[in-house]
Structures are given as C-alpha cells and as structure tokens.
C-alpha cells in the first residue's frame, strides 16, 4: 500500500519590504 506523505509545515516568511527593513535596522545597530 502507498503511504500518504506527511503534510509539510508552512514556513512563514516576511515580505520583501519587511526583510529589507529588518536588514536595515540590523545594519544600523552594528557599529
């Protein structure tokens, strides 16, 4: 019998704009 594959877990992703915002604030924090 064929085994039904386990459903995959959805990985939540920030939007491109949110990603950029996070990246900018990280750059600002680092000296």
């Amino acid at each position, binding site marked *: 019998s064929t085994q039904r594959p386990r459903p995959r877990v959805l*990985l939540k992703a920030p*939007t*491109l704009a949110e990603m950029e915002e996070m990246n900018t604030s990280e750059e600002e924090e680092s000296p």
Partner: protein
Amino acid sequence: RQVTVQRKEKDFQGMLEYHKEDEAALIRNLVTDLKPQTLLGTVPCLPAYILYMCIRHADYTNDDLKVHSLLTSTINGIKKVLKKHNDDFEMTTFWLSNTCRLLHCLKQYSGDEGFMTQNTAKQNEHCLKNFDLTEYRQVLSDLSIQIYQQLIKIAEGLLQPMIVSAMLENESIQGLSGVKPTGYRKRSSSMADGDNAYCLEAVIRQMNSFHTVMCDQGLDPEIIQQVFKQLFYMISAVTLNNLLLRKDACSWSTGMQLRYNISQLEEWLRGRNLHQSGAVQTMEPLIQAAQLLQLKKKTQEDAEAICSLCTALSTQQIVKILNLYTPLNEFEERVTVAFIRTIQAQLQERNDPQQLLLDFKHMFPVLFPFNPSSLTMDSIHIPACLNLEFLNEV
C-alpha cells in the same frame, strides 16, 4: 589472512550540508562576492542549484531556523549585490536568472503535484520533505520582479541615447538625402555630427550584446522575449514621440527611412527567434506613422485609406503628423486644411485617448512562467573556484 573490507562510496543524494557558522561565508562566496565570469563553462544558474541543495539538507534535518536563515541571507545578499551593481547588465541578468531558477526549484521540488508533472522518478526523490516554502516563493517572485525592472532600466539607459539618431536622423538608404524637405535641419536636436550620432547598426549591436548575455546566463526564454518586447516598445515610443514633435522629421523620405529601419529590426527579431515575443506588435503605431508619411494625402479616397490603415494611431496623432507634414520640394503640395478636416470628420466616432505622446516609460507586467529543469541534483558538483569546500555532499 588479511581481509579487506571495501566500503561502497555512499551515493550523493543531491544535498549539501554546512555548519551554521559557515552560512556567512556561503553567502559571501556564492552571492555577494561572486563574479559571473567565474562560472563561465559551468551549468547555468549553478548558485541557484547549490542554494537549493543546501535548503534541501536543512529541510531533511527538519531545521526550520536554518531554512529561514539561509533564505533570508540569500535574498538580502542578492539585494545587496544588485544595489552595488545597479548599472551592470551582466550582473543583473545573472541574478535574475539565478533568482528565477531558485524559484523554479522551490516549485519543482515542493511536492506539489502540479509542479511535478515533468519530473523523473529520481527528481521526485529530491523533493522537500518537511517544509512548505510557498511564502518564500512569493518573496522570490517579488524579488525577481525588482531585478527584472532593474535590468530593463539598465538596458533602456544604454539604448535611449541612440534611438532618435538611429531611427530618424541616420540616412542609410543611399540617395535619400537628396530628397529631404527644404529647410531640413541635418542632425538637428542634440544629436550633432560626431560622437552622439548613432546608426541603426549600433542599436542592433547593443541588442545582440543583451541577447548574448541573457542566453549565456541561462535566463528563461520567456523572460528574454519579455525584455525585447519592452525594449522594442520603448524604441518605438521614443521615435514616435520625436516624430510628433519635429516638423523636419515628418516627410516622405523620413517615412521611407523609418520603414526600412523597422524592417531591419523585424529581421533581427526573426534571426534571433524572437518574432513571437510581441515586440513587433508594440511597433505598430510607429509602422503606421511611417506609412502615413508615405501615403497620398489629397482625395476623399486617400482620406479613407488613411483612416482604415491608421488604427493604432489616435486621431490627434494622425492630425498632428498631417499638420507637420513637410513637402519634399515645390512639386509636392502641403496637406490642405480641408483634407485634415475630412480626416477629423471620419474619425470623430473613435473614442481615442487624449494625450498626443506615448508614455515611453510604460512597463508591461512581467510574467515568470514555471520552467522546470531536467537536471538532477546529484549530477551537480561544486567547482573548486567557488571556495565552498566547507559544503559536504550528502
């Protein structure tokens, strides 16, 4: 007796493992510091395949944080490199190609049956097991649109200074200069004789260069077609706008030269197998303007012919060209006011847009059709020049 146990070399399953602390080096060597020339002669879009194989291992070990971190760093790395090389056509093509390929991989190996129809059994073994990366696919799709827009901007910036000179001013048809209208300003506007004067061959050379780079970098053919549709629209719009503003360009001889130039561009599209791209259709208003310059403009029948031919030009544009039309010599008459009124009367039913000039900055929406790869992950090996020796094949 000595017994030799021969261990079978473990099969490479198309996954790449790395330690979390090597992620920064991975992004640096594979994304931010990578020069496209380094990978000449290797599989096109190799960085995308390597990144997918790394994602797959993190998925295999059920490490969601590693997947998040790698995808975020990759996307930020690509954005950084594009910002730094925002006038580099080759670099921008390289990352458009790789971003789209990574997006295709995330679909092809998502486990979603709709994307698996062309997969081999072996490729199906390489699907993600634990995570659904649909949201990251959306981010990569948005990023691809941004990169595409940057690519168009670079290409347009290179082509735009050539257009008026190459399409309207350069005389490649022999003997045509003798039939210029009286008072024609040779190489008028900003295009003085010298460095700024371009011929159509220069435009074609530039497009050849774009096409070669995009093909070499393995950009999807459907995207290459959309790039040229966009560029041909821009060439056509800039040319037509200039024609609509310049009395000296509205003549029979310019119409003749323009038709010849357009036919050269169409031939170029056919030669590069791009005639199905929709690029020719974007030139329709310009093609009709060139024909309008050459048609007779005297009788009722002439007016009817013009109205049935010029369907891609607005009434305002047709009337403007007729008003600007400059006779070649004393034997050719000006277009009469009565003739223009006849045309206006015939076209009054049309619901034409009011603006005279075309928006040459208009962008057609871009589409990235799914394009699965026939490559299998276990056939891809990492060249030493990438300095990724910390990646372990699993």
